[in-house]
């Protein structure tokens, strides 16, 4: 593995809240025992946008991220405020390469409460942290966990995101350790 740093890349239209950024970075560092770096990237290319759906294709964004990964980065998680989709599905919270290099997470559906009101800072922070840990977990080789409270359990709604903890369950922690050892990280 070339790099030893997890890169958090902001690819949103608006600026990210500094406090939110720092809290998420801290928790990523704690969970993966790796330092993080942060940078703001350009807006993803227009081809990632589906004007009809007013959503961006997570798969296309992922491909775009992979085209500019710095050599010092072990993993990259792109965070966008755009709503993401894959063609067959209405939306996705994020997408990752299982056992790969990159992941993308959207804040679009994390910033509201179930009834459409703006979510609190704490709620957004918790949700974004969970989704970043989740997608990064995939890049380390973890797949969805059947344990409902584990951060690697699949979330199909914000309710699902809120229900899980911002932590890996014991099995996933163990598996993550094994996967990291296997890859010499």
């Amino acid at each position, binding site marked *: 593995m070339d790099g030893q740093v997890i890169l958090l890349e902001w690819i949103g239209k608006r600026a990210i809240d500094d406090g939110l950024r720092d809290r998420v970075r801290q928790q990523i560092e704690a969970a993966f025992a790796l330092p993080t770096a942060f940078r703001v990237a350009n807006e993803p290319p227009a081809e990632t946008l589906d004007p009809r*759906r007013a959503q961006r*294709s*997570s*798969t*296309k964004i*992922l491909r775009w991220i992979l085209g500019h990964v710095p050599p010092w980065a072990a993993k990259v998680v792109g965070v966008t405020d755009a709503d993401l*989709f*894959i*063609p*067959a*599905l*209405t*939306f*996705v919270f994020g*997408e*990752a*390469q*299982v056992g790969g290099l990159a992941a993308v997470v959207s804040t679009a559906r994390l910033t509201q409460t179930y009834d459409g009101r703006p979510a609190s800072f704490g709620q957004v922070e918790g949700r974004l942290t969970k989704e970043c840990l989740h997608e990064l977990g*995939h890049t380390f080789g973890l*797949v*969805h*966990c*059947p344990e409902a409270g584990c951060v690697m359990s*699949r979330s*199909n*709604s914000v309710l699902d995101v809120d229900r899980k903890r911002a932590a890996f369950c014991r099995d996933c922690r163990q598996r993550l350790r094994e996967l990291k050892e296997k890859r010499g990280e």
Partner: protein
Amino acid sequence: MKGKGPILVVDDEEIVRDSLASWLEEDGYQVETAPDGPTALGKMEQRAYPIMLVDLKMPGMDGLHVLTEARKKQPDAAVILMTAYATVDTAVQAMKQGAHDYLVKPFEPEELSQMVGHLTKDQALRRENILLRKALRRQFQFQDMVSKSPKMETVFELARTAAKSHSTVLILGESGTGKELLARAIHSQSQQKNGPFVGVSCAALAENLLESELFGHEKGAFTGAVSAARGKFEVAAGGTIFLDEIGDVSPKLQLDLLRVLEAREFNRVGGSQVIKTDARVIAATNRDLKKHVEDGQFREDLFYRLNVIRVTIPPLRERKEDIPVLAEHFVSLFQTEMGKPLEGISAEALELLMAYDWPGNVRELRNVLERGAVVAHGPILTALDLDLSLPAPSSSKGEPADSLKEVERRHIVASLRQHNWNISRTAKSLGIDRVTLYNKIKRYQIREDE
């Protein structure tokens, strides 16, 4: 969790294929993709796909066509059709053609998650059921005897009934079918199980010796009778006496046995004291006892005394479905006895065992496998380990079958030649005892110079 599936995603749009694959991979599924129907069907030649996600509208071969062809190749595959143009007609047609379900694009992540999740669970359950059914598939057992044959189930059932009673049991069957094993099994499940099980081979001894063996003798009853001795009937008190080869007993002894069975009493040879016996009698023979009665060689009254509960064990060639289970049973037995890491038997070896006619029945099978287990170099017994180079008597195709006796005679001659007319070795390889072999040599008038 890794390794569920594989799921085959068939869609002409690369981005749909890749994104769905990525989405499903996050769930731990193995996913493969195909850009069109022909490629998908080609992939189906190579491996099984329990779940397929197929786009309905594709250039060339459309989703319904893929569905029809896929079902021909893999009827168990659950095909989910994806369509952006759902109409009731399409849905009805898809379901009629055997689609598991259909999804209208774009669908909710939860919808796909649940559909695929439920399908995977259902399929795992179905597989589990099949395995369970296979495991439970009518394997019958009676003590140490195992079988998958319905004929043997009847035998075991009868033997269980016999075990509960004190009645005399007559076990019929060819040499090596396990008559003694069955007798022992009946004994060990009977009320007399804590008493002795005493076996006597009636064909192995001359008449006077057998008489003394069965009933004992008093001191001086005959030359060499320096002291009194108890006979097997006395030894078997409170237990079971097993009279093997009862069909070979002389007329005088038949009369003596009739008395024992009728009056439950006898005298020692040279003795006058009447000795009572409560031993349960189980007799066995490979002879056609009814025919012996008709020929006047066997007492009819004794036959009826013995024939209270009659159990006939079918020869192995009539229950070949037992060969795999018996082979597995013996291999596992030898593994324990020999302390050798034997894991099983190769498909080729099993084919050889299945093709053979087993004139020596289960005993011969056991011997062949025991020899194989001794010489085997690896954990799996191969065809080379089995000393079954002789052509199977039933393997001649298209020709009228020889009578069983002719086949048996030919097989015995071949075995004798193979072992340079060494009776012990030949008997062992045939899975029969020496006396039986001598009897067969005599009966078939086999000569060394032929």
